């Protein structure tokens, strides 16, 4: 069950079947509902998430018809003119849609009518299934017209309970009594007037194919074909005001084999030379080289991902090297294409105080440069965090003066190191709130006591004791990082 703030009260906006059986309805205040059934499971309503979901569902429904209209907040209109026969008939199509929705875990009601407004009203208010459309529309309650609350109440007070009652009156009378909106709504239901609709835009995928009369195998011919395809792709991208983020080249060999090459750009681009360079890089990085065999008989270039890219003023002649940010982006995409996107990374600070989780190394291709949100180090202090961190920490044998005290001597990588200077402990607790039962004493995980130590030669280490003596018997020591 979902609730949201309406006016000054929290009211129910949606109830599930179980709640409906308990007699709860939308519009009731949450306090009333709680008073009746104290153990209600109520969540706050997220309208934005619903809108996104509806949009996704609408895009998904393009499988049934290219003409999909979103009926915000909770409906989808499909214009099935000319597409019903692809699924058998209208009933079969409706069944397919309902099955599809059921597979997604949705409860749906569907109705088919001559106009979008009529179908919407029937799906929401009529008794399904509908056999006679005109009769069903006449039998709809006046609330199906979607008038404001006052006009609906006025209709009911005048004894006009159904759409049919209202439609039997002269239009001028209705307009005078209940406003012009009532007449318009009636006309839209009956199909005398078409309501404007804004169907979802369907982007045609960018897909360019070049077929050859004879299979081609020469590198020069393939390069020429690619250049031609790139010109077409770039022209389309420019028309849309977009730049490609990913490109896919498919080489169809005459014996049926398909070689696919994928590249990704760090920033949207429609520079053919740059794209060509990336493809050359990709071909160079292939484990086994492309084998044209008896030749390729068609080449396809697709742009699976495109983003908005506004036209930029090109520099004046001899103005310089060009945009420095794009030079760096080119380096990123070049290295990502050759070594793999995960191999060139940026460090992003994370919300965690556990040292090994405090940063994430994420592909630079998909994560643009952003200033690190880290506090500036305190003046006068030496570095408190190591430059290099071992993950997992490396076990060390430590001799301490007293069990709880700082390390005196430790053995790391089979070398015995004497501690000359130390600072600590810096106590870092485990993230007990992430663990089941972490709030109970001893349930939150082991605390770490970190020491910054320097050995006789001046090397600086970050070592910690895993667990306090109260938490476990004989806690172990680990070396976690190296300072400069």
């Amino acid at each position: 069950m979902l609730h949201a703030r309406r006016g000054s009260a929290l009211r129910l906006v949606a109830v599930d079947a179980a709640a409906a059986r308990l007699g709860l309805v939308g519009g009731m205040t949450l306090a009333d509902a709680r008073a009746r059934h104290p153990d209600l499971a109520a969540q706050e309503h997220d309208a934005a998430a619903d809108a996104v979901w509806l949009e996704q569902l609408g895009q998904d429904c393009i499988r049934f018809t290219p003409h999909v209209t979103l009926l915000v907040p909770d409906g989808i209109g499909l214009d099935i003119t000319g597409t019903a026969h692809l699924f058998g008939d209208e009933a079969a199509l409706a069944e397919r849609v309902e099955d599809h929705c059921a597979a997604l875990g949705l409860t749906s009601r569907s109705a088919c009518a001559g106009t979008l407004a009529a179908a919407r009203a029937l799906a929401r208010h009529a008794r399904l299934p509908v056999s006679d459309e005109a009769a069903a529309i006449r039998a709809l309650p006046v609330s199906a017209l979607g008038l404001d609350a006052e006009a609906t109440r006025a209709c009911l007070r005048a004894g006009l309970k159904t759409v049919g009652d209202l439609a039997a009156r002269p239009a001028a009378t209705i307009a005078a009594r209940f406003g012009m909106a009532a007449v318009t709504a009636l006309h839209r239901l009956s199909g005398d007037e078409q309501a404007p609709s804004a169907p979802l835009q369907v982007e045609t995928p960018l897909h360019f194919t070049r077929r050859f009369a004879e299979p081609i195998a020469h590198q020069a011919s393939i390069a020429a074909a690619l250049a031609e395809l790139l010109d077409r792709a770039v022209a389309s991208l420019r028309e849309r005001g977009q730049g490609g983020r990913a490109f896919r080249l498919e080489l169809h060999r005459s014996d049926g084999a398909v070689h696919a090459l994928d590249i990704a750009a760090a920033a949207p681009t429609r520079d053919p030379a740059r794209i060509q360079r990336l493809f050359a890089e990709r071909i160079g990085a292939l484990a086994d080289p492309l084998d044209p065999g008896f030749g390729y008989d068609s080449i396809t270039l697709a742009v699976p991902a495109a983003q908005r890219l506004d036209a930029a003023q090109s520099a004046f002649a001899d103005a310089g090297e060009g945009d420095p940010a794009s030079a760096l982006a080119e380096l990123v995409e070049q290295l990502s294409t050759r070594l793999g996107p995960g191999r060139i990374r940026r460090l992003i600070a994370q919300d965690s105080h556990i040292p090994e989780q405090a940063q994430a190394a994420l592909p630079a291709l998909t994560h643009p440069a952003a200033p690190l949100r880290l506090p500036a180090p305190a003046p006068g202090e030496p570095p408190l965090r190591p430059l290099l961190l071992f993950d997992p920490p490396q076990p060390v044998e430590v001799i301490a003066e007293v069990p709880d005290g700082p390390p005196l001597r430790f053995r790391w990588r089979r070398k015995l190191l004497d501690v000359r200077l130390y600072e600590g402990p810096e106590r870092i607790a485990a993230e007990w709130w992430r663990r089941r039962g972490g709030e109970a004493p001893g349930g939150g995980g082991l605390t770490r006591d970190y020491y910054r130590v320097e050995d006789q030669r001046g090397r600086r280490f970050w070592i910690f004791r895993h667990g306090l003596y109260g938490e476990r018997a004989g806690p172990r020591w680990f070396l976690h990082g190296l300072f400069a």
Partner: protein
Amino acid sequence: MIDVPPPDISLPLPEKAARQRWPTGVTTLDAALGGGLAAGRIHEIHAADPDDAASAGGFAALLAAGVVGRGKPLVWLRERGAVRASGIIQAEGLLELCGTLPRDCLFVLADDAPALLRAGHDALRCADLGVVLLEARGPMPRLDLTASRRLLLAAERSGVTLLLLRIGAQPVPSAADTRWSVSAAPSRSLPANAPGAPTFDLALLRQRAGPSGLSWRLEWNRDQRIFQDAALSGAVVPVPADRPAAGGTVVHLPALPTAA
């Protein structure tokens, strides 16, 4: 007998534009380098011992972020094996060490030495970068004189400085401008026996067209973002005020004549 004209030695050599130099902040060091580290060149930084990898890496990072780069983007290239041997680079640790970070830091992991060198070469050609830090572990026979000359050509063309961090390698002939050996040095302790600011023992093994064989003990001053001579910044045992230092005598200086 044909008269061979004497070679005209008065022709001036093609003059190269004076390189930009980045001063380190230590007077004697900058004097030995002729003003500082040259930009658009290769500087080799050897870890004196494989155990000093963190110190050499830290010194290279300081040069990259604090001295040479001056805020321009940094690319740090490593081999995959480096992560297991000496750990993951920490952004927070880098910031704590240098006091400031370049505008953009990219970290590249290469599979093997050829891929590493090729990626380094590509990075050097990107003129937007300030520094490329290439961490090469082991002897790496691929990184010979020819390879380093190739890197130098790319660096000179773009003006990007290459810091070549060598760990566990013997110095071999290369096109580097300077070659350093770095090891950890005991730091000046803070109150309560705490380890102090990063301190390095630095030896200038070789310098193209300049003196070499010099050594320093440097301390990094993060607040001013310069290196300091650790011997001058008070790392020596302070002289007691009430009695003469061991082996010395108290000399009374004559009073300065007051200005008339």
